[in-house]
């Protein structure tokens, strides 16, 4: 279990290195971390995808 945790930790740790101070966007009086900006961007993408991607209903009846 411990070995597995080490492997998983090393794998994901190599993709995203969080061992440093956060990076921030400075836009006038607005200050936001890149992580929060990324989450907002993802929400916009998911919102647009939810509108544009067709929904497969049961047997497509009544559409």
């Amino acid at each position, binding site marked *: 279990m411990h070995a597995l945790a080490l492997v998983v930790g090393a794998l994901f740790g190599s993709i995203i290195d969080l061992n440093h101070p956060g990076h921030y966007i400075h836009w006038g009086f607005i200050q936001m971390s890149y992580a929060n900006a990324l*989450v907002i961007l993802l929400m916009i993408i*998911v919102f647009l995808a*939810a*509108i544009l991607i067709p929904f497969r*209903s049961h047997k497509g*009846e*009544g559409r």
Partner: protein
Amino acid sequence: MTVVDPKPARADQADLDKAAGRPEDAAQWTARLRESAVEALPPQKLLPDRQPAYVASWIYVFGVTTVCALIVVIATGLLLAVMGPNWWHVSSTGLFVNSLHLWSVEVFFFAMVVHLWGKFFMAAWRGRRQLTWITGVVSFLVSVGAAFTGYLSQQNFDSQWISTQAKDGINSTGAGAIFNVTNFGQMIMWHITLLPLCVIALVGIHVLMVRLRGVVPPFAAKGEAIGAESPAGSEVEA
């Protein structure tokens, strides 16, 4: 000689069934409350099998995604409350449940914001749905408070940093006298009792209002008429 009723439980139930139909009981508040509740939200309306055809869109799934995330938040929160800080800081299982609690909150807010955008651009307060909209907005605001007090209740340097940063902001509003973010006892009580109860109650009312008034239809395209309610025969299975 004592006579024993061979089926006392069934006989009692029969008496209750008989009493339920008595006209003299109809004026009692229990009967009136039950009848008005069943009339407003009959079981088939409370848990429907079919939805209007326009609900067949991905934008309509984010409300229920939010509710599912809330269930995980509450379940993991209960577990954290039972086991305590040592468990969630030190043991592998505790750390895992703590992470589940955090990430289910992330999913909760993510889905709720997408749900909010979808309903905002649909003007979801149309068709006597104002209370549905308002309870949703207030749920969002109370949830922000619940999440904030959660960050203050982590029992680590992060929560200390957040509380010392937040106190100046809260004090500048004048609320610091009654809402002291550096008072751990007060913050954890708000986080695990007051605010979760408010969120659960508000979300419950919100969902009941959705069932009562129905899911808001989209705006009609040019030259096309979409009524407030779905026309007969244009429903799909839920």
